[in-house]
Every structure is written in C-alpha cells, then in structure tokens.
C-alpha cells in the first residue's frame, strides 16, 4: 500500500523515538519561522527607511527589534541633517529672494553708473542715485549673507550625496535579505514536510494526539507587512480561500478568441478577374 511505504521507515522505530524526532523538528520549524519573521521585519524596516529618505513616508520608521541597524540609523541621522540644512537654505533663499550672481551683476552695474563720469543725458538723476546707493549697500549685505552661509550649501550637497549612497547601500542589503528569505523557505519546506509526515504517522497510532505544527506565517501577510504588493491572482486567491493556499488551483478562465468585426462600410467592387477577400 501507498500508506505503508510512506511510513515504512517509522514502523520499525520505537514510538518514543518518533515522538522525539517530531519534537526536534517542531523546534526547528519554530526556529526557521522566527528567523523568517525577523528577516521580514528587517526587510520592512529597510523599505520604510528608504521610503522615508525619499519623502514617500512622513513618519520616522521604528527600528526596534531590527538586527544590525547601524546603516539604517545612519540614514535616519543623515535625513534629519539633510532636512535641517534644506530648511536653513530655503529660509535664506526666501529671505533674500535674489541669487548671489545676480546681486553681484547688479552691484557692478550700479557702481559703474554712480561713479563713472558720463554725459549728463546718460547720468542718473539725484533720485535714482539715492535709490541705487541704498540698493547697492543692501545687495552688499545680501551677498555677505550668502557668503556667511556658503558652508550651508556645501554641507547640503555633501549630506545629499551621503544620504543617496546610504540609501543605495540599504537597497543592496534589501536584495540580500530577499536571498536569505528564499534560502529560509527552501530549508523550511522539507523540514515542515517531514514534521507533517511524522505527525500524521503519530496521529494514526491509537491513543496518540501529537501537538499541531506551528501555524505557517502566510506569505502574503508578511509581504504586505513589508510594504510589498500582491498580484491580482494572489489577491483573488486570498479573497476566495482566505489565503494563498489555493493559488495554484485558481482557474484562469480561457479567453475566447476575438471575433473579427465585420465592417458595415460598403466596399468597392473587386477589380475584374479578382475575388473579394472576405467572400
């Protein structure tokens, strides 16, 4: 029988030994599930930090329970610094309104008009002189303000580059986590299968009620928690079965081949000696 061949290796073993093996496997399954949860949490934290860094997320991501969060902390610190510098730069620019190079140009022009001898018809009148004098020294003060804040622009650029590099590095790490996750899945699957086999065997023995296997963390739950999206098929399976269990069984209705619509427009008569194509 098929059932005999499935458990043939267990039948010859003492029940206690099978129970012990089942217990050991349960410990392994829990360990792998916990590891999977931790990987997803790390992956989600990385995803959130990247979103936060590019302003797609407004709240600062929570990094509690994330393993090796040095780079994430670094990204959050850089983002905070970048935002601070950006705000300072915006305040400066909105307070002065005119770019530095334009100010210097205008100062040169005003200085030349006020000090260079010219024919009276091309010379500014007294009212213009007063206005230009006042503007010249205001612009001088504005240029000084720009120069005093020169480090601000340099710091902003440096922080922007550093943040970008950190985000790239986190993105690379994120790919590594996807690989870890695949590896975890591949390792967990045969362990679960074997544990299930042992449990079925033990349950078939009279007077035995083995512990159930730990609930499998649904793939889509973790994926949604990590901020990933589901495909339409996965979403449909979830709605029908309350999970992705029946994903493979979801039938995709075959589409009927499109019928060619016949035109209502009159066609010209065929050339002599030729047939109409759709005739």
């Amino acid at each position, binding site marked *: 029988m098929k059932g005999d061949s499935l458990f043939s290796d267990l039948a010859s073993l003492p029940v206690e030994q099978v129970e012990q093996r089942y217990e050991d496997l349960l410990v392994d399954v829990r360990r792998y599930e916990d590891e999977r949860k931790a990987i997803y949490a790390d992956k989600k934290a990385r995803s959130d930090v990247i979103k936060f860094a590019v302003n797609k997320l407004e709240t600062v991501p929570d990094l509690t329970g994330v393993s090796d969060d040095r780079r994430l902390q670094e990204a959050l610190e850089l983002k905070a610094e970048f935002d601070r510098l950006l705000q300072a730069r915006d305040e400066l620019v*909105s*307070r*002065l*309104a*005119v770019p530095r190079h334009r100010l*210097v*140009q205008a*100062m*040169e022009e005003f*200085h030349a008009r*006020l*000090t*260079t*001898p010219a024919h*009276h*018809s091309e*010379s500014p*009148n*007294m009212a213009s*002189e*007063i206005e230009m*004098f*006042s*503007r*010249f*020294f*205001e612009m*001088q*003060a*504005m*240029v*000084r*303000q720009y*120069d005093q804040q020169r480090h601000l622009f340099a710091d902003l650029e440096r922080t922007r580059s550093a943040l970008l590099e950190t985000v790239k590095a986190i993105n690379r790490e994120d790919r590594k986590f996807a690989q870890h996750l695949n590896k975890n899945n591949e390792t967990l699957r045969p362990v679960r299968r074997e544990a299930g086999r042992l449990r079925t065997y033990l349950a078939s023995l009279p007077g035995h009620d083995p512990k159930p296997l730990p609930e499998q963390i649904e793939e889509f739950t973790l994926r949604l928690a990590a901020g990933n999206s589901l495909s339409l098929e996965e979403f449909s399976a979830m709605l029908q079965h309350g999970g992705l269990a029946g994903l493979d069984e979801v039938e995709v209705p075959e589409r009927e081949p499109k019928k060619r619509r016949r035109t209502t427009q009159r066609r010209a008569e065929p050339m002599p000696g030729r047939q109409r194509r759709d005739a």
Partner: protein
Amino acid sequence: MAPEDMLSVTPEAMVKAIVQRRERMAKEIPIELEKRREENDRAYVLTNEAKQRHEATDDEPSEGTKTGAAYEENETFRRRTVSRLWTAQHAHSDTEEALQFWKEMAEGNWGHLLEDAQRVEEGGPSSYVLRKQQKMDLEGSS
C-alpha cells in the same frame, strides 16, 4: 573693478565717488548750457526770419509752398533746441541739488540710506521680498 571688490566698497568711498562725478558734471554742464542757449537763440532767429518770409509770400502760392516748408523746418529745429536747453537746465539744477545733498552725506549722514542693508544684516527680509509680498497682498485684496 572685479565683482568681488564690490564687497569692499564703503559708503564713504561711494559718496566720495558720486561727489567727484557730480563736481565734474558741474564744471561741464555750464559750458553745455551756454552752447544750448546759443543754439536756441540761433534757431529762434532763423525761425523768425522764415516766418516773416513766409508771411510775405501769402499772395504767391508757388513761392508760398517753398517758404512754408522752410519755416516748418526751422520751427522743428527750434523746438528741438528748446528741449535740449531744458534738459541741460534741468541737469544743471539737478547737479547743484545733488552736490549739496551728497556733500551733506559725505559728513556721515547716510544712515537713513542704509536702513534696508541694516535690516538684511540683522536677518530680516530683503526689500525685494517685501515688494513681492506687498504686490501679492495688493493682488489678494483686489
């Protein structure tokens, strides 16, 4: 002057340079004014003569056309010289007034002219921003 040298220009130096420029103009403008007066007098005489000739040829239509054109031409010239004379006279009075003003400023009375600069130095908005704000307020209220 190099662009970066603009930062080292002081109000004292600027006032001094303006006064020098104005003093130079004050020397040149009276000569110019005299030339413009002479030009205007000449134009006035020419126009007057042309007018009299034109009035004398009232009975001769063919001759009248020629004298009329000459009169028109001289009258246009006279008007132009009046305009030039007024410009020179205005420049003359403006220079005298400006010289007086900037000489007062040279004694260190320019404080009120540097109010905008002081506001910017103290971290306030530039007058460009204030004007923009004013314009927006006006547009908003209308």
